[in-house]
């Protein structure tokens, strides 16, 4: 699909929402919704996306939209999808409808994990999208289990006692793949074509699908607003955020950087890692690089791709 043609399709998400200038997730929403052919019903966990897009009586959504609490968007959308199947069986609805649940990483990796796991295990035909901005940005930049190691957040403040978050992020995409659902993918809003293709596959899946999409938070990452796309691109180019998909248990790499950037190059673009460039933290930088390299090798093996 060429972009000018994509722009001919009516958009389901409008301007006038109250996300920060240069926010990443409206771009994620745009790419995913443009890939949907059927009417869509969106559920949204509490988080930046929900708060900024539905300030009463304004809503940026042109489709059906349900706001849920932090922890239960997957449960709510399970119910909606089950009701739809029932109505369809009774002949009261004849239309194909696409169900999408959006949650941030707080609402997905942490608070909503059990309802997400349940919805996937029960096999509801819905697409769960985690717009992952690597922290609780809406409530004031607290760490989540998606926050990278070494990031400065308000609950892991970098100082003399602590060099930012002590733990690595958990590999949620792999956890979702372990649910053996039809389609799981990791993507980034910077690589629109890849994300668009993956959204199409997710919508077409015969059962639940899960997308984990890196979406820059310029406030929490402390980046310049105009760099939103570049920083997400950098995460892919340094293998911190590899693009891959798992289709019916088959792991497939979507993109391999020609020459991976050092992780430090990506971190340098962001204020949340500033302290890592002090001389007393140079060892930590090396440790993080080693971990990223190891994770990358493991992914290559899973995908059956030869490393250098």
């Amino acid at each position, binding site marked *: 699909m060429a*972009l*000018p*043609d*994509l*722009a*001919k399709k009516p*958009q389901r*998400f*409008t*301007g*006038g*929402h*109250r*996300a*920060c*200038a*240069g*926010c*990443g*997730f*409206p*771009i994620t929403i*745009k*790419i995913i919704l443009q890939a949907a052919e059927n009417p869509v019903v969106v559920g949204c966990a509490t988080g930046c996306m929900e708060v900024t*897009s*539905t*300030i*009463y*009586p*304004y*809503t*940026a*959504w*042109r*489709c*059906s*939209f349900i706001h849920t609490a932090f922890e239960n968007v997957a449960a709510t959308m399970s119910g909606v999808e089950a009701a739809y199947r029932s109505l369809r069986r009774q002949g009261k609805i004849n239309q194909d409808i696409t169900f999408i649940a959006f949650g941030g990483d707080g609402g997905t990796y942490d608070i909503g994990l059990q309802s997400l796991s349940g919805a996937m295990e029960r096999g509801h035909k819905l697409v769960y999208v985690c717009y992952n901005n690597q922290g609780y940005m809406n409530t004031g930049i607290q760490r989540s289990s998606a926050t990278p190691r070494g990031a400065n957040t308000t609950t892991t403040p970098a100082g003399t006692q602590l060099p930012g978050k002590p733990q690595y992020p958990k590999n949620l995409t792999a956890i979702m793949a372990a649910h053996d659902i039809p389609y799981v993918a990791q993507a980034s809003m910077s690589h*629109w074509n890849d994300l668009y293709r993956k959204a199409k596959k997710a919508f077409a899946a015969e059962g639940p699908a899960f997308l984990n999409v890196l979406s820059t938070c310029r406030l929490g990452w402390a980046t*310049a*607003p*105009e*760099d*939103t*796309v*570049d920083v997400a691109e950098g995460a892919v180019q340094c293998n911190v955020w590899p693009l891959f998909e798992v289709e019916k248990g088959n792991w497939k790499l979507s993109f391999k950087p020609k020459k991976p950037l050092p992780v430090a190059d990506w971190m340098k673009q962001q204020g949340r890692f500033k302290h890592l460039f002090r001389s007393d933290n140079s060892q930590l930088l090396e440790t993080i690089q080693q971990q990223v390299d190891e994770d990358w090798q493991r992914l290559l093996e899973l995908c059956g791709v030869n490393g250098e």
Partner: protein
Amino acid sequence: MTLSSQTKNLLKVHQDVDPDIKPNAGWRDLPIGGVIPQGGTASQFATGDWRTIRPVWSKEKCINCHRCWLYCPDMAWISEDGKIQGVDLTYCKGCGICANVCPTKVHAIEMHPEDDFKDDEAVKEG
């Protein structure tokens, strides 16, 4: 019953976005559960006044790749029939992403401080 100014404001906005709400409506007439009966009402909310810098587009230089349209978080780039028409300043928050993603060699968008346009608006309003 007196309505708080906040409720009055809400009702007013609601009447703007929902013609079914009567002009003399009270809070009891608000939809139960905070339901917003119409989609896309945010398009009636201008976020352009957040802007401190403004994208200026050169139609001549533009190669119509639509990267600005895709990566603008505020749906501000107008595309009609697959052709970029320019930017809708009602929504543009001045993040500068569009100027950044426009291909380097093309460079069809430049960001300028809002101050540069002060006089234009004075003329328009006058």
